[in-house]
C-alpha cells in the first residue's frame, strides 16, 4: 500500500510485521491480545490517575527522615552522611578501576553503554528524587554533591587508574571490609563517638544493616557447613545435616520467636545481646543454612578428580579446598547464593512482626499516626518500589558478576 513495501530490508516494516505476527497470528491470539491490551491500558490509566490525582504523597514527604534512619538522634546524623560520602567515593573508585582493568566480559571500553546509562540514571535520581520528596534545599544539594562525588571518582579512576601504583589497586578489596567496620563504629558509636543504642536505629538504615550483617557473616557459616555436610567424618556430617534441617524445617518467624523469647534463657546472665542483635544473629544463622545448601550444590558440581589431582600434587586438604575446589564451587554456587541474599533482604521485613522498626516496621508506625491514617496504598506502594529496585539491582549485579567470572568467556 506504501512504496516502503518495495524495500524488504526496511527495519520498520519487519518490526511491524513481527509485531503483527506475534499479537494477531490467529483469531484466538487476536482476541487475547485485544483483551490484554485493553486491560493493561485501563489499569495503567487508573494507576496514573490515582498516583497523580487522588494519592496524597505527603505521608512520604513528611516522614523521609523516619523512613531513612528511624529515630536516629538528629545531632548524630552527620555520622551517617559521612558514611554515605565514604561509600559513594569508594563505590566510584571501585567502579572506575573495574573499567580501567578490563576483564573477560568487557571489550575494554572505558565507557560502555551500560555505564553511561547508569550515570544518566544516577544523575536523574539525584536531581529528581530529593525534589519529589520535598527535601529542603541544603539536603537536595547534599544528594547532588554525593552523586557528583561518585561519578567524579568513577571518572578519575577510569581514566587514570592504570597509571596508579598496583599496590593501591590491590588494596581496594581490603578497604571495603575496613569501611564496613568503620561504618559500624560510625553508626553504633565508640572510638570517642557517643553511643547510639540499636533501639534507636530504624528504617532503611536498620534494614540494610541487618541484611548486610547477615549476608556477610552467613557466608563463612554456609561454606563451613557445606564442607561439613560433604565430609567423610560422620560427626561433622551429621551435625551439619542436623543444623541445616533444623533451620530449613522451621518458618523464619518461629526462629525469630526463639531468638526473642528463649535465647535470653540460654545464655549466661548479661551475655544476651539486645533484641536487635538477637534478631541479626537469627537472620545470620537462618541464611547460613540455606547458603550451605547452595554451596553444597556447587561443591558437588566440581568433579572429584579436581580434589584428587590437587592432593596428588602435594597440596594439603585445606590448601586443595582453598585454591582448587572452592573457587570453582563458589562460582557455580553464585546465582543460587545471590538468590538467597535477595530473599534474605526481603525477609528482613519479618523484623516488623517482632516489634523492630525496620523499613516496614517504621512504615506501620507512620500509618498508625492519626495524621496519616488510611494512607496504606501510598506507603506500601513506595516500599514495594524500593524493595523491587534493590532486589532487581542485586539480580542484575549477580548476572554481571557471573559473566565476569565465567572462565569460558574469551577476553576480547
Amino acid at each position: 500500500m506504501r512504496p516502503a513495501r518495495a524495500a524488504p530490508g526496511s527495519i520498520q516494516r519487519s518490526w511491524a510485521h513481527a509485531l503483527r505476527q506475534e499479537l494477531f497470528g490467529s483469531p484466538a491470539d487476536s482476541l487475547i491480545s485485544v483483551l490484554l491490551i485493553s486491560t493493561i491500558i485501563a489499569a495503567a490509566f487508573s494507576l496514573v490517575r490515582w498516583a497523580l490525582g487522588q494519592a496524597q504523597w505527603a505521608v512520604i514527604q513528611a516522614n523521609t527522615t523516619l523512613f531513612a534512619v528511624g529515630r536516629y538522634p538528629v545531632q548524630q546524623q552527620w555520622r551517617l552522611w559521612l558514611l554515605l560520602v565514604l561509600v559513594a567515593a569508594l563505590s566510584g573508585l571501585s567502579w572506575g578501576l573495574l573499567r580501567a582493568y578490563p576483564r573477560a566480559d568487557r571489550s575494554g571500553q572505558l565507557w560502555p553503554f551500560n555505564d553511561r546509562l547508569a550515570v544518566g540514571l544516577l544523575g536523574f535520581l539525584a536531581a529528581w528524587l530529593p525534589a519529589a520528596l520535598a527535601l529542603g534545599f541544603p539536603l537536595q544539594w547534599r544528594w547532588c554533591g554525593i552523586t557528583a562525588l561518585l561519578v567524579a571518582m568513577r571518572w578519575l579512576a577510569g581514566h587514570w587508574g592504570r597509571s596508579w601504583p598496583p599496590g593501591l589497586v590491590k588494596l581496594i578489596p581490603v578497604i571495603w571490609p575496613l569501611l564496613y567496620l568503620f561504618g559500624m563504629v560510625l553508626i553504633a558509636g565508640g572510638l570517642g563517638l557517643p553511643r547510639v543504642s540499636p533501639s534507636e536505629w530504624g528504617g532503611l538504615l536498620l534494614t540494610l544493616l541487618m541484611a548486610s550483617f547477615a549476608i556477610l557473616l552467613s557466608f563463612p557459616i554456609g561454606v563451613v557447613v557445606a564442607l561439613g555436610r560433604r565430609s567423610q567424618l560422620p560427626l561433622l556430617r551429621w551435625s551439619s545435616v542436623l543444623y541445616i534441617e533444623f533451620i530449613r524445617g522451621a518458618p523464619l518467624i518461629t526462629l525469630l520467636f526463639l531468638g526473642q523469647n528463649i535465647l535470653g534463657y540460654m545464655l549466661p546472665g548479661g551475655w544476651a545481646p539486645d533484641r536487635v542483635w538477637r534478631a541479626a544473629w537469627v537472620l545470620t544463622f537462618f541464611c547460613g543454612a540455606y547458603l550451605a545448601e547452595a554451596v553444597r550444590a556447587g561443591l558437588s558440581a566440581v568433579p572429584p578428580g579436581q580434589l584428587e589431582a590437587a592432593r596428588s600434587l602435594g597440596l594439603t586438604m585445606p590448601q586443595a579446598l582453598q585454591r582448587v575446589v572452592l573457587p570453582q564451587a563458589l562460582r557455580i554456587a553464585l546465582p543460587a547464593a545471590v538468590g538467597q541474599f535477595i530473599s534474605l533482604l526481603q525477609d528482613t521485613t519479618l523484623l516488623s512482626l517482632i516489634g523492630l522498626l525496620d523499613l516496614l516496621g517504621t512504615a506501620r508506625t507512620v500509618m498508625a499516626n492519626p495524621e496519616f491514617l488510611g494512607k496504606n496504598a501510598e506507603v506500601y506502594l513506595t516500599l514495594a518500589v524500593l524493595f523491587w529496585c534493590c532486589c532487581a539491582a542485586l539480580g542484575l549485579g549477580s548476572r554481571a558478576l557471573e559473566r565476569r567470572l565465567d572462565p569460558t568467556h574469551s577476553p576480547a
Partner: protein
Amino acid sequence: MSRSLERIPWWRDRRVLPWIVQGVVGLTLLLVIALLLGNLVRNLTAAGLLLSWRWLGQPASFDVAESLVPFDASMPYWRALLVGLVNSLRAILVGLVGATLLGTAMGMASFSGNGLLRRLARGYVEVIRNIPLLLQLLFWYFVVFLALPNGTAAFQLPGIVLSKSGLYLAWFSQGFSWQGPELVNEVWRAPLRLSVEFSALLTGLITYTGAFVAEVVRGGIASVPKGQWEAATSLGLHWSASMRSVVLPQALRVIVPGLNSQYISLAKNSSLAVAVGYVDLYSVSETTLNQTGRALEVFLLLLGSYLIIDLLISAVMNGVNQLVQIRER
C-alpha cells in the same frame, strides 16, 4: 627408609587425624550445647517455667475469630492450638491448589505464541519475586480487601459476592439445594463465607507462590527437547493439545521435585498470616505465650507442627514423583 615409613608423626597419620578432628569438634559442640541447655534449665527453673505440659488443659480464655472446630474461650489451650493448626492447614491446602493452578497457567503462558501474553507472564514473575511477601500480604489486606465496598455496592458475579465483610460463595445448603449469596437486611448471607483475612492471606500466598511455581513449570517445559514440540505439531496437534499430551507429561519429571520445595515454603510462609489477622497456628501460639509465658513448650509445638507438615508434603510429593517417572519397558 623403613624407619621413616614406620614413624609417621601422629598429626599426619590418616588413621589418627580423623579421630582428633572429630574429637575436637564433638567436644566443642558438646560444651556449647551443655552450656546452653544448662543455662536454659537453670533459668527456667528459677522462673518456674520448666518444661511441663499441664497448662495445655487450662482454659484458654481468649476467642478465635474463625474456626472449623467448635471453640469458645472456656475451652483449654490444646483446643485453641488445634483450632490454629486446622486454620493453618486450611490455608496451606487451598493455597497449594491455587498456586499450582496459577503457576502452571503462567508457566505455560511464557511459551505462548502470543508475544504480549508471554511478556506479561514474565513480567508477573519479575514483579512478584522481587517484593517481600509480607509487604504483599499487607497490601492485599489493607489496600485491596479492606477498601472493598459493602452491602449492595459489593462486587457481584453469579454465585460469588466480594465485599468488605468477606467473600461469599454459592454452595450446597441444608439438604442438597444449591444456594447462592443473598442480601438480608443489608448483610450478605451465603452457605460459604471466607473472611477478608483468609481471602487476603490466600490471595497473597497464591500470587506469590504462583510466581515461583511458574518458574519451576517454565524450567520443566524448557527441559523438553524442541523436537518433541515439532513432532507434535507436524502430527497436526494444536498448541494446547501438544502441550497437554506431549510436552507436559515429559516436563512433569523435572517439575515435580521443584514443586516440592515451593510447596514447603508455602507451608512455612503461611505463618505470616499473623500480619493480616488470620488466626493460624503461629498467631494462636503467640497469644498463648503472652498469656502463659510458656516460651519453650510453645516453640517446641510450633517446630514439631511445621516439621510434620513439611514431612507430609514431602511424602506426598515423593509419591507423585514416582507416578510421573517414565516407566521403561
